[in-house]
Each structure stands twice: as structure tokens, then as C-alpha cells.
């Protein structure tokens, strides 16, 4: 009896192991088949080529350029069959592009630098946002008029790589992030600031700041600190791909950029209409919020004085500032190897340089 039950136990363990193994095998064969599908499509020149784009966040006007290019057929004109994958808080574009779920991804430049330093074979190909959208917002009634007033306050951050501009800001004012303030993990609403659970919150100009305005706050009842004005801006939304895919699809990458830039040009020329198109694609947030976001995003993609034919330009000075601040405030452990992690040849081809 005892012997028999032992045998059964062993059998069940072996079966369980076999099942787990087959599960993993199923996973890996799944990703490899998508990889080969996209590689195979490059050979067929007549039919459209499949490209999958992984967004960093939910479908919203932050990514309007791609949605407009899809809607107006700019990708189709370049022979691209585009598939736009929405992101979310636990969908990490770097990981999606690295394991072949997507071909191209949108992420923050600072976050990409971290992955590149860790050995992930990813390359930045275009810089969509020329400026940082990061604000540190507080209610006027809290009387926080400068970073020096942060001392002793509860400061919110999303973390996960989004905290380094805040660290740089604190560093600039000689505040110790562990001793002088209390860091609090922020959720993706603005409830903590509104209810007073945090005194200062991170907010993107195009999203969370808009949520506050929609909740009845105004520029007059809020204090905001703009990281661009403080000189601690780090670059955000950029486009990247993995080196393997790039080496197999150099023309496809340039075509994708060309269509995307066209989409961004249209979107920034008429953000009102772009917001509406994004809203029609996915009604996850209100039309008013999408058009607000579109207007704010346009200011980041084509800041005043920026030539709109140059959308996606990778400004070496801004990239250097991102890398230097990252190194100084603990994001990176060594100077970023930008010569090997950035490749502007696809963008140059796309804009006809």
C-alpha cells in the first residue's frame, strides 16, 4: 500500500513536470513563429509587410501620430500592414520588442538607456517627444512655491523608472530623497493629491494635469514645477527596435518612420481633429480629455520654433543630458554608450537627408 502510493506520487510529479514543460514549450514556439512570420514577410515585396508597434500606455492621444497614420492610410501607402498594441502598467515595451511580440516599441528614452546598459540588444531610432512632459504639481493651498518647500512633505511618484527626473530635481536643491522628504507610490489617478494624501504629485502635462483641470482645479489653484525650466528634463517617448529585426528590415524601419512622421505632422497641425480620431478608435477616456491631450502632446512633438519636417530628430544635447542625469542620480551605473545604442540612419532616410 505504502509502496503503491509512493509510485503514484512519483508519477504525478513527473506528469506535473511534463505538463509545465509543454506549457513553456508552447510559449516559446509561439513567439518564434511570430518572429519568423515577420522575417518571412520581408521577402514578399508585392504584398504589405506586417509591422507590430507596442505602445507604452493605453490607446490615447499620446500616440496620436501612429493612429492618424493608420487612419489616413499612410502606413498602407508605404506597404505596411500596421498592428498597434496598446500598453499598460505592467506591459513593458522593451521586453515586448526584445522577445518578438512587437517589432517596434514606444518607450521613455531614459528607460531604454537602462535596458541597453543591462545588455538588451535594443536601438533607439527616433525621438518623438523633444521635451519632457513631467510636472510636479501641488495645490496652491499647500504653499509649495519652489522645490525647497518640498522638505518634510509627502511626494508622490509612479516609480518603475519614472522617478529619476524627481531625483534630479531634489538633487539640484540638495534635498535627500530618503531623509528630507517622504516618497509615496502614486497610482494613475490624481486622487491622492486631491484628498491630501500626497502634497506633491507627478503629473504629465498631457494627461494627469488635464485630469486635475477636469476635476475643477485651475492654473490659479495649482502650483506646478516644470522639469524643463529647472534644467533636469530627461527625454520621454521615443521609438526603438531590436538590433536583430533592424538588420533584417532596414527599409521597412525607414518606411515606418516616414509614415509615422507624416501622421504626426497631420496630428500636430490639427490636434483637435486628431483627438477625435483617437477617441473614435478607442473610447477609453472622454473626447474632451483626448483633445486636451492631443493639444498638449503637439507642443512636445513640435515645440515652438521646431521644424515640423524634422519630427523624430534625436538631439544629441538632450540625449546627453538624459544620460548624464541618469548616471548622476542612479538610473545608470556607467556613461551611456550612445554611439552604439542610437542609430539615426533610418530616420535620416525617412526625412530624406
Amino acid at each position: 500500500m505504502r509502496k503503491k502510493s509512493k509510485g503514484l506520487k512519483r508519477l504525478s510529479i513527473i506528469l506535473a513536470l511534463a505538463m509545465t514543460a509543454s506549457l513553456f514549450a508552447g510559449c516559446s514556439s509561439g513567439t518564434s513563429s511570430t518572429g519568423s512570420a515577420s522575417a518571412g514577410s520581408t521577402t514578399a515585396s508585392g504584398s504589405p509587410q506586417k509591422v507590430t508597434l507596442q505602445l507604452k500606455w493605453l490607446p490615447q492621444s499620446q500616440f496620436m501620430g501612429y493612429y492618424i497614420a493608420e487612419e489616413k492610410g499612410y502606413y498602407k501607402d508605404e506597404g505596411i500592414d500596421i498592428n498597434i498594441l496598446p500598453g499598460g502598467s505592467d506591459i513593458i515595451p522593451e521586453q515586448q520588442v526584445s522577445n518578438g511580440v512587437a517589432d517596434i516599441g514606444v518607450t521613455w528614452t531614459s528607460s531604454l538607456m537602462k535596458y541597453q546598459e543591462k545588455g538588451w540588444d535594443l536601438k533607439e531610432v527616433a525621438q518623438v517627444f523633444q521635451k519632457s512632459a513631467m510636472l510636479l504639481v501641488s495645490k496652491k493651498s499647500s504653499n509649495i512655491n519652489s522645490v525647497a518647500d518640498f522638505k518634510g512633505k509627502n511626494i508622490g511618484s509612479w516609480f518603475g523608472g519614472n522617478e529619476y527626473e524627481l531625483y534630479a530635481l531634489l538633487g539640484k536643491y540638495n534635498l535627500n530623497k530618503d531623509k528630507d522628504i517622504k516618497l509615496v507610490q502614486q497610482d494613475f489617478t490624481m486622487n491622492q493629491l486631491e484628498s491630501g494624501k500626497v502634497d506633491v504629485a507627478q503629473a504629465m502635462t498631457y494627461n494627469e494635469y488635464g485630469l486635475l483641470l477636469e476635476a475643477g482645479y485651475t492654473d490659479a489653484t495649482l502650483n506646478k514645477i516644470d522639469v524643463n525650466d529647472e534644467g533636469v528634463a530627461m527625454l520621454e517617448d521615443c521609438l526603438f527596435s531590436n538590433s536583430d529585426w533592424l538588420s533584417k528590415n532596414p527599409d521597412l524601419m525607414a518606411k515606418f518612420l516616414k509614415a509615422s512622421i507624416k501622421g504626426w505632422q497631420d496630428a500636430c497641425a490639427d490636434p483637435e481633429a486628431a483627438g477625435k480620431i483617437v477617441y473614435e478608435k478607442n473610447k477609453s477616456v472622454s473626447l474632451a480629455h483626448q483633445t486636451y491631450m492631443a493639444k498638449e502632446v503637439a507642443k512636445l512633438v513640435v515645440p515652438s520654433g521646431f521644424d515640423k519636417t524634422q519630427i523624430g530628430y534625436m538631439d544629441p544635447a538632450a540625449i546627453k543630458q538624459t544620460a548624464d542625469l541618469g548616471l548622476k542620480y542612479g538610473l545608470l551605473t556607467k556613461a551611456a554608450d550612445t554611439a552604439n545604442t542610437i542609430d539615426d540612419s533610418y530616420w535620416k532616410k525617412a526625412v530624406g537627408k
Partner: protein
Amino acid sequence: MKQKVEKIEKLILPILFGVLLIFLWQAGFLHYIFKLKVYQLPLPTDIVDSLRMNFGKALYDCAITISGAIIGMAFGSFLGFAIAAIATFFPKWGYGGMVVVTALNAIPIVALSPIMNCWFSSGMAQKIGVVTVVCMAAMALNAYSGLNKLKPFSIDLMYTAAADKWTIFTKLRLPNCLPHIFTACKINVASSIIAAIISEYFASSTAGLGFGIKDNLRKAEMSTGWSYIVVASLAGVVLYSIIVIVERNAIKWHASQR
């Protein structure tokens, strides 16, 4: 003698299997099968290295998570037992509490966390709130069946001796319930740690194993993230062992312990 050999065999085989697995992992065999790069699945030596460099903080984070889990488990288990006791004393209306607690049990932790974040402002209180709710149902259901599944002859004996409700409760129902309480505790140890870690994904604090795992995995600090995972599972094993040892000594008389 034979028993001893069997015991050793029982101990050594799983250890050997574990060692083999770690060896295959270190040698890159797992990476080969699953087509992973080292930056996707760090090597055991890298994980140990980052644990060593980060040991003080990891220990502190572990203490935060475990204290939240234990306090929440104590609250939840106490409330669960109280609900079961009320349902036993006042079967007519008291069973309603059991129904409510069973319904609460169906709420996923990811839905519970934002609710608790809304109710409480400190990360610790949010975590305790989540763990409390998660631990209530297992205790209530187990304790209820322990308090009520009595041997007919024992309850008859109590009646013939004209024992009152309270005497029946303390002399018969409670001892009968003890093994069930330990079963619930064993379930709750595991679920309280899981609940505490998941709630830290959403909680407003920046300490704890859950925050460490999430934050580091998002930031490509894979080996640090994995070192937190190792600490979390070790903590779980230690807590479980403590409950088993207490159980072994508290209910020596029960069939499951002989």
C-alpha cells in the same frame, strides 16, 4: 532502522533535485531550453550577488511585508473565527455572516487593493486591510465546520449532563475545532504573504517585497528583482514551518499528528 533510511531518502531526493535544477540554471541549460538570454533570466550567482549587495534593504523590506502579513492574518483570522462562532451560537441569523464572508472571498486582490488604498492613507494600513479580508473566509469556513461537525455521542453526552451552551462551546466545540483552525492558519500563511505582496504593487508606500519585485523588474534590474522573489519565498517557507511546529505541539492528541 528501515524507517530512518526512508526518512533520509525522503529528505535527500528533493534536495538533490533542487541542487540539480540550480546547477542546470547556472550552466545555462534552462536558458537554452526556454531560449532566454541571461538578462532575461539572471544566473543564480548574479541573484546571490545582488542579494548580498542589497541585503540590508531586502531584510527591511521583508520585515515590512511580513509584519503586514502577520498583523492582517491575525485580524482576519480573529474576525473569521468570530463570525463562525456567532453563526454557531445564533444559527438562525448568524449564518448570514458566513454568507457575506464567502462572498468577500470571491473579490480578487487586485480589486481589493485600490479599495483599501482609498480607505487608508498609509501603505501599511492598506496592506493590513487587504490581508485581513483575504484571511477571513478560510478561517470562518474551517472554524465553522470544526465547531459544528461534532461526534453525535459527544453532544448527546453534553445534553444528558445538562451542559449549557457556553460549556458545550468551551469543552466540546473549541477542542474539536482546533485542528480546523490550524488548517485555516496554514492556508492563511500562504495567502497572507501573497496578498501582502500583491497589495504592495498598488499601495502608496515604497517599502516591501512587492514594491521591490515590481519596481526592479520594470527597471530591468532583473537580478535584484529575483533576489526579492527568493527572499519572499524563503519568508513563506519559514512562516509555514513555524505554524506546522506549533500545530504539532498544540494538538498532539489529534489523529493527523500521530
